[in-house]
């Protein structure tokens, strides 16, 4: 019988080969090989982390939240993390193979893979963020994902959950769980958006009432029929002030005290990401408030999340936009700044994007239309994206259809003026980064997350 250490060494060697062969960063392949040799590899390897594991999942914000949490923990811990959205079992196993000498794990986990990975990772803290409709052809209906989470949420870990999401707040929890949310009606929306996913009470099915709607179906909710309501908040943002695309000031209210924090990130969704990271750090138990705040204040954007890059011909801001709730927040954030913008909107329909592209019709491109100076649509469904923008009110005369991603980017940045804002689906982001990496202007994606 082959010893476990030899299997790990073989899988580790495969990662190096994959990189040298130019086949990517080995973010999934070594783990896949190792899991083939030993299905319990995740449990065996994660059990060696003396400080334990923190795992988190959500439809939107996983990568940014994990990076924020790492930014708080890294001064004191050597972390093992999965990168670049490699958040299935193979990606987590690859990360575990790759980090020698780590004492703690921080892993983002795919929503549908959590049911398998949570028992394997046995995290000390499990953070559950939000559930939005995403890739219906891959994940199925939202209810199915919620049902998977219901089966594992009250396991032997400290649960941290987004109280503002009625589906997440309704999950069973053991004692000691922490809830987070926003408590500032000043940044609430006037009404529940049309694309809101969860309008009905999880307990009794009646329509929920919102005292404040913050993002999608997230907010201060209550059910007038059965009396269930948003749980009280252990960690909250009690004052949120936006400074355009430059940053956001929030007042954190935590069990460790209050603290005003300036985050160099735009958008209310990043406030939710920050709250998730702070609440998980609180649940982990050994992180002072000052270090949480410092982690948020020095935080740089995660891979492709309002990330500024030089393209060789100009500047671009890469913005991952892969489902209605996430894309609508990107648009809300961009629309805060009324200056005319040059856009690239890249829509791919590969398996990791979801083959079904109907979701673009749940995105409020109408809000962005008045601020569009010009737009290049790109990706495997470039023309379809152009149709969407046309019906959103963008003048076809300022639109260009260019399926080739790098050519689309070059075309957009060749004009004078500010940066081109590049909204892309997941695989389009990877392809675009690949093109920029070959030009030597951005680091490869497996080093960037």
């Amino acid at each position, binding site marked *: 019988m082959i010893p476990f250490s030899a299997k790990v060494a073989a899988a580790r060697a495969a990662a190096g080969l994959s990189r040298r062969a130019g086949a990517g960063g080995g973010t999934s392949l070594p783990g896949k090989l190792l899991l083939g040799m030993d299905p319990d590899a995740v449990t065996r390897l994660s059990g060696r982390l003396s400080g334990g594991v923190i795992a988190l999942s959500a439809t939107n914000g996983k990568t940014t939240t994990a990076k924020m949490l790492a930014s708080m923990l890294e001064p004191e811990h050597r972390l093992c993390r999965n990168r670049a959205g490699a958040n299935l079992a193979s990606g987590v196993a690859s990360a575990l193979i790759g980090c020698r000498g780590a004492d703690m794990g921080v892993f983002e986990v795919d929503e549908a893979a959590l049911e398998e990975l949570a028992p394997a990772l046995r995290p000390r803290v499990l953070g559950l963020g939000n559930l939005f409709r995403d890739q219906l052809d891959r994940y199925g209906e*939202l209810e199915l994902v919620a049902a998977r989470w219901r089966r594992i949420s009250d396991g032997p870990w400290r649960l941290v959950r987004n109280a503002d999401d009625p589906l997440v707040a309704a999950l069973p929890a053991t004692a000691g769980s922490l809830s987070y949310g926003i408590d500032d009606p000043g940044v609430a929306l006037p009404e529940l958006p049309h694309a809101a996913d969860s309008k009905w009470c999880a307990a009794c099915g009646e329509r929920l009432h919102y005292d404040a709607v913050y993002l999608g179906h997230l907010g201060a909710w209550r059910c007038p029929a059965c009396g269930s309501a948003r749980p009280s908040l252990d960690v909250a943002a009690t004052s949120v002030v936006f400074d355009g695309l430059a940053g956001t000031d929030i007042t954190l209210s935590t069990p460790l005290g209050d603290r005003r924090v300036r985050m160099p990130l735009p958008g209310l969704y990043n406030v939710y990401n920050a709250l998730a990271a702070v609440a998980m750090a609180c649940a982990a138990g050994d992180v002072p408030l000052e270090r949480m705040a410092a982690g948020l204040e020095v935080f740089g954007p995660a891979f492709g999340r309002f990330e500024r890059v030089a393209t060789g011909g100009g500047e671009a801001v890469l913005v991952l936009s892969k489902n209605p709730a996430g894309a609508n927040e990107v648009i809300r954030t961009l629309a805060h700044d009324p200056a005319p913008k040059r856009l690239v909107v890249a829509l791919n329909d590969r398996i990791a994007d979801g083959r*079904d592209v109907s979701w673009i019709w749940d995105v409020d491109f109408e809000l962005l239309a008045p601020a569009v100076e010009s737009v290049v649509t790109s990706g495997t469904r470039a023309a379809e994206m*152009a149709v969407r923008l046309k*019906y959103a009110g963008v003048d076809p005369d300022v639109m260009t259809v260019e399926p080739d991603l790098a050519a689309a980017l070059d075309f957009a940045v060749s004009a004078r003026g500010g940066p081109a804002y590049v909204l892309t689906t997941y695989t389009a982001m990877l392809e675009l980064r690949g093109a920029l990496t070959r030009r030597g202007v951005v680091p490869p994606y497996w080093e960037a997350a």
Partner: protein
Amino acid sequence: MTDLRVCHLYPEHLNIYADRGNIAVLRYRCERRGIAFAVAGCGPGDPLPEADLYYLGGGQDRDQVAIAGDLVARAADLRAAVAGGAAVLAVCGGYQLLGHGYRGHAGDDMPGTGLVDVVTEAGPSRMIGNIAIRCELDRGDPRTVVGFENHAGRTHLGEGVEPLGRVLHGHGNNGADGGEGVRAGRVLGTYIHGPLLPKNPWLADWLVRASLERRHGTVALDPLDDALEGEAHRVAERIAAAG
């Protein structure tokens, strides 16, 4: 002035595949031609508005169950509206409810309106993917419809009932008989979303014309520039053909 009145049935429940995109396309294509466009929502318990076109989208299982009874209670009103010349477009879950209903695996049956003679039963797996079909809504004018399908139901048409089209690529009603959707006069049902109308502007215009006939007779529609729509249609057909 020519005007089109649309009733969007259960917009809060049946909206899973960006169904508002279909409404947006109908609105745009009417307003560009100087045809006034009005849409009225109709939720459970609301009075049924008088309309030229009734629209039913698809929903999550739970939302479909929530409105099925309410819809069935309106069957006679809807039948009267259709007899009076109204058109109907029903997509995915709405299509299933337009027929005699849905037979689930265990206790999750749903009644239907019986407005069209089709019946749906739960299948062992979901039929998911890009789809293209061939239709001939007007004799001698064959066209294609492209989009996406994602359904567990297998729908079977009654004797002599006409499908919306024949499957070129994809699964269609049941994956077996080559038919997709249903067509009975001005009543259309289909599994195709994407949404249905943006990439199939000819079908949007067919629906506008069919709906206007009720109060305005035959209306000729000015042509619009559909270059982008045409390109999106071609790409979708190519992707569907590649499987």
